[in-house]
């Protein structure tokens, strides 16, 4: 997409324009900067048959599964990280096919990271030294060849290789971006940089929209460039209940309660109505969350890390 056209739009518009039923989606964030706001919008827009990839699933996946948005998840772990406690919608889907049968394409953390890396690099596969002999190597059979071994032409050893993944659409929630889509993220990035750059279409949601000059003050923090970005959404608190370094801390209480509040289908349906389908957008969600909690979660400022860029 040309960098001239304005890309600033609402999350509703960004998801509406870019996500099609059946797409393979990448969601950024490993504990931090998880794309809850984007996921909730996919639920409100009743997207269906999405394949969703993400290094660790957690309650974000649990919600997409419970709402019937995805029938195929690609991840290394899916549980409520707080505690940890079960992800009930995942359990219901896997054990009872409620609300539908889903494929859980289980990866190891390294495998999914290297699949995104191969997609990032534009190469068809990358070797890794793990997963041979485990169930991850070949289950589930429905998704075909998940990994393979090849003989190294230099050492003669047989080594495991994992295929590239290039999702149709990727979404990230970052600290800041300029209006053209140059996006910066710092703190714990996990798989986000490689995952998002492997995507064909990209939605950037940012806590702040800043001038390009700010981006250029520490260009090492840029994780995706404007030339690849299709939509820029100004979405403060878009990662709640996960954290964004320098903005807000993880809402542990909310996540802890989520497990209790979604244990039965009825509980889950109430939760869904309260937090997702009963609100129109992130602004309304924040009203439900309440000012007191927002104040509690807001990060204490710790501004540091300047260095000399002089020449």
């Amino acid at each position, binding site marked *: 997409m040309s960098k001239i056209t304005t890309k600033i739009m609402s999350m509703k518009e960004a998801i509406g324009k870019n996500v099609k039923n059946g797409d393979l989606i990448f969601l950024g964030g490993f504990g931090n900067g998880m794309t809850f706001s984007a996921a909730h919008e996919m639920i409100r827009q009743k997207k269906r048959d999405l394949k969703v990839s993400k*290094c660790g699933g957690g309650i974000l996946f649990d919600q997409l599964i419970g709402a019937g948005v995805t029938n195929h998840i690609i991840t290394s*772990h*899916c549980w409520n*990280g*707080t505690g940890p406690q079960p992800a009930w919608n995942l359990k219901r889907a896997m054990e009872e096919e409620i609300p539908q049968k889903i494929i*859980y394409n289980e990866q*190891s953390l390294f495998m999914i990271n290297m699949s995104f890396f191969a997609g990032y690099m534009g190469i068809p596969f990358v070797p890794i030294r793990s997963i041979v002999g485990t169930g991850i190597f070949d289950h589930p059979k429905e998704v075909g060849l998940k990994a393979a071994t090849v003989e190294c032409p230099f050492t003669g050893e047989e080594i495991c290789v994992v295929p590239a993944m290039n999702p149709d659409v990727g979404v990230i929630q970052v600290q800041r971006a300029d209006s053209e889509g140059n996006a910066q993220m710092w*703190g*714990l990035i996990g798989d986000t940089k490689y995952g998002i750059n492997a995507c064909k279409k990209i939605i950037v949601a940012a806590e702040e929209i800043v001038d390009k000059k700010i981006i250029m003050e520490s260009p090492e923090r840029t994780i995706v460039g404007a030339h690849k970005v299709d939509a820029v959404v100004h979405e403060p608190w878009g990662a709640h209940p996960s954290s964004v370094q320098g903005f807000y801390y993880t809402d*542990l209480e909310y996540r802890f309660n989520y497990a209790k509040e979604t244990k039965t289908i009825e509980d889950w349906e109430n939760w869904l109505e309260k937090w997702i389908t009963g609100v129109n957008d992130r602004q309304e969600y924040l009203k439900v969350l309440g000012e007191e909690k927002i104040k509690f979660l807001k990060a204490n400022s710790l501004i540091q890390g300047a260095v000399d860029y002089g020449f």
Partner: protein
Amino acid sequence: MGSNDREFCTEYTGFEMMLVSACRQIKNDDIVFNAFHWPFLAVHMAKLLHCPDLFSVLEVGLFQDELAKPNKMPYSISDPVLVPNSLFVGDSIDALSILQRGEITVALLSTSMVDKYGNCNTTVIGPYEKPIYRLPGGGGATEIAGLTKRLIWLIDDHSKGRLAKKLDYITDPGYLDGYDSRLKAGYPPDTGPDSIITPFCIMRFDTITKEAFLEVLHPNITIEQVKENTGWDLKIAEEVKQIDPPPIKEIEICRKTMRDAIDQYFVLKAEWTTYLDKD
């Protein structure tokens, strides 16, 4: 150190004893891969007790060599509190490269089910496609199990269901089918499970068959108790060592750590925390 170094604690839970045994396996010059969930507690205790400079790596992509300040238990591997308390912050591939280059000397992992070859299942009970119980999956544990020099499994409940005769799925590779099968699968020769630590005991692995055997009994636990609660016909070391009850100092640090964990919403069972409020 205070006098309570030599004073033994008489009242403690099996979970506490497991953590104490686990943290003792870590040395100050180890390079540890620190993982959620009980390993966090054991590593935290080790740092407070005997490893002030412990170099630890987390799968989210960071390393550090001291306790996070403020001295807060990270609620998970991705707690933002870790960032300004680390010597390096990168991405998951950076962390995993340290592991894959063979630089990690020790890791602890808590797991759902282990078999006699140290393989683990955190994925599924029943068939993969149609599970009876679906479990969370391995995350980075697969790589940690595959690539760490000394791997220590923590099982918080010593029972036949958890120390299982047969696994429905291998999430994390131990010695696979024993003998040289792990080596043949391509895992580095100097890696693999070192021990299994439970509330009852420490098991280690035979150097030839790679089968787990009972080596160390926790205080007041009998060989019979261990055998009865293990899902396979457990082999026993020629001389099983029964260790002393833990010094008060260790238990104090253990309980402080458990309290910090509870503050960060770690879910600890009631029977593990019996003595927590008594201190």
